[in-house]
């Protein structure tokens, strides 16, 4: 539903609300500093709410509101012509340089006056009317209206009144006669503008008597001194306006403007209505919030990129910790499981390894030893008994042909490198002196040393030769003791068969 047009005016003593056909006036009370009292504010909010509710005003509907001249600064600036949206930044810069307060602390607005004019120096300049007021003043009014459910756009009441002035010359002024003070606004050829609050009103001047005359005279004097205009439009009390016009004479020419009385009808509100009906215009708006700078990226994009930048920053900051955050728990579980498993595995493996190594280290090289003995044994040896044990002790009983063979046998055993010691414990000739009986003991070297020795027949010798020439003890075989057990077994078999069996049968 479209809201009916609502126009408001804040004066020093009241808030005037005007709608299409009716209106209302709500009294205001102010503190010495001009701010509204809390009680007055609450009362006005409640009354305005009720007024609007009775007329079907939607919540937060938009309205125009004119404010009194208290604290308002009005100036005409001549600025170089700029394109499009550049006016806002240019005016802002001018406010920064020419106004006593920075733009951030002001509610300000501007309006271009007429067409750009070529200056004597050739520059094209545009007159701009700038209105500014402390943000606190407009903010207070805005808060009040917001609380009552109105979203208002603010302008200066003096500017709205000027819209009602008929046949305005290039330089003119507008005077609003109030009850205890008056507002004077002047516009001089698009070169100068001002607004003043004059401490003279209908109540201070009175209706008759010496004091009233004096007040009117002083008011006329002020107007003459402040205005260099040809015409003064006077709003307010008709009698007083007429008297003032008479007193002013021709400098300037005073012209009372009559406003038909009624609720919600003030010069400013009527001016606002006229401005609202003008399709090409609109009141000069006092901006409470700074307008968006076209050069600055506007809010949705800014927010979007801001969020992206924030997320990126968070990602950069958190990235080094992401791995720790997400992988600690699974890794901890995994490591614990592996530690348990590793402990168990290590125990079992170590135990089995120790057991098997013990088994290996305590298996004496019987076959290799037999091979060495068989290779070292001279022909004609008779072996009665051959004993070997796992401590490496060898004991042999048998007979040889003579002492030379005994010495030769012993030398070959030692030369094989397998025996640490060879002892012929007993050597005695047989009764017929044909042979020598011997009892011999020997000690094998430790297993570690034996495994490193090259003992055994070459592959060719292992083929079946009984005593191959290169298979004598000490000569390098095809492989080590532990690697060619089959060959060693074959070699040992050949030699032992010869010495044991043949010798045994002799």
């Amino acid at each position, binding site marked *: 539903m479209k809201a009916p047009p609502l126009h408001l005016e804040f004066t020093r003593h009241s808030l005037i609300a005007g709608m299409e056909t009716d209106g209302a006036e709500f009294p205001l009370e102010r503190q010495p500093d001009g701010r509204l009292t*809390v009680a007055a504010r609450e009362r006005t909010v409640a009354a305005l709410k009720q007024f609007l509710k009775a007329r079907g005003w939607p919540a937060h509907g938009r309205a125009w509101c004119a404010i009194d001249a208290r604290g308002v600064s009005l100036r005409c600036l001549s600025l170089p012509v700029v394109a499009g949206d550049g006016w806002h930044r240019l005016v802002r810069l001018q406010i920064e340089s020419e106004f006593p307060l920075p733009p951030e602390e002001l509610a300000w607005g501007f309006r271009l006056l007429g067409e750009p004019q070529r200056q004597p120096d050739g520059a094209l300049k545009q007159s701009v009317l700038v209105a500014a007021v402390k*943000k*606190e003043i407009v*903010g*207070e009014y*805005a*808060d009040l209206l917001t*609380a009552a459910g109105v979203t208002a756009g603010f302008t200066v009441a003096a500017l709205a009144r000027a819209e009602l002035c008929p046949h305005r010359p290039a330089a003119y002024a507008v005077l609003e006669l109030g009850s205890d003070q008056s507002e004077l606004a002047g516009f001089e050829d698009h070169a100068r503008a001002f607004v003043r609050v004059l401490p003279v009103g209908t109540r201070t001047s009175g209706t008759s008597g010496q004091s009233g005359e004096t007040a009117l005279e002083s008011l006329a004097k002020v107007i003459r001194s402040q205005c260099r205009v040809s015409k003064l439009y006077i709003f307010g009390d008709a009698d007083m306006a007429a008297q003032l016009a008479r007193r002013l004479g021709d400098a300037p020419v005073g012209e009372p403007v009559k406003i038909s009385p009624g609720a919600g009808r003030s010069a400013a509100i009527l001016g606002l209505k006229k401005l609202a009906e003008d399709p090409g215009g609109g009141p000069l708006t006092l901006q409470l919030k700074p307008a968006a700078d076209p050069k600055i990226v506007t809010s949705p994009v800014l927010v979007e990129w801001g969020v992206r930048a924030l997320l990126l920053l968070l990602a950069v900051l*958190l990235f*080094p*910790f992401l791995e*720790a*955050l997400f*992988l*600690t728990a699974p*890794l*901890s579980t995994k*490591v614990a499981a*592996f*530690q348990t498993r*590793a402990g168990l*595995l*290590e125990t079992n*493996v*170590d*135990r*089995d*390894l*120790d*057991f*098997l*190594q*013990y*088994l*290996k280290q*305590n*298996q*004496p090289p*019987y*076959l290799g030893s*037999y091979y060495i003995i068989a290779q070292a044994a001279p022909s004609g040896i008779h*072996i*009665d*008994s*051959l*004993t*070997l*044990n*796992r401590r490496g002790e060898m004991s042999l009983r048998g007979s040889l042909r003579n002492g030379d063979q005994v010495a030769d046998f012993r030398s070959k055993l030692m030369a094989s490198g397998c025996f640490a010691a060879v002892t012929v414990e007993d050597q005695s000739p047989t009764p017929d002196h044909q042979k020598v009986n011997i009892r011999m003991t020997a000690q094998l070297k430790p297993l570690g040393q034996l495994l490193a020795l090259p003992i055994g027949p070459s592959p060719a010798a292992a083929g079946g030769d009984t005593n191959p020439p290169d298979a004598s003890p000490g000569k390098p075989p095809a492989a080590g003791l532990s690697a060619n057990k*089959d060959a060693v*077994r074959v070699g*040992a*078999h050949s030699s*032992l*068969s010869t010495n*044991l*069996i043949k*010798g*045994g*049968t002799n």
Partner: protein
Amino acid sequence: MRTLTVREQRLLLYGGIGIGVYLLLFGGYKLGGALERRSAAYHQLVADARELKQELKACDDRVLVVKKMMDHYQLDPAKLNRATVVGLASAQMQKVAAGSGIQVGPVRESPAKTSAREMATLQLEGSGPIPAVLGLLQRMETLGWPVIIDSVQITPDSMRPGQVKIILSAVVLDFDQWKTEGKPHA
């Protein structure tokens, strides 16, 4: 309740922003500290995992050695049963001897000293040709039981020309002692 003025709203806004910034900085500091601690713990965990990996790799090498030796001896220590190992080892030894061509004679069994980590001593007597004797000695290693030849005595067999007599003593190892002792003193 009265509506707040612009000044009060601004004061509240700035106050809220200030408190928010303080909380953000304070919380960020605390959060950063917690994250740092967690990160340090994680890196310590990673170092432990690497160390464990090295240990397991070394263990893998030992596992390979054990596997190779088990294949060589055809023996799995984990499957040995103390109650039956002596009897089965004796039976296997006789079977191998007979399979090698040895005529198996008396077989004697005697308990061994526990301190030497031996369960029993087996003595096998037999006679046969030299190749059979040497074949038996070779096959004793791969008997499939924890048996070590303690001594071998070979003498000519006067009753059977061309053959020798063999007296073979072997000990059966008490593998349980490796399980209970932890690190044995081999």
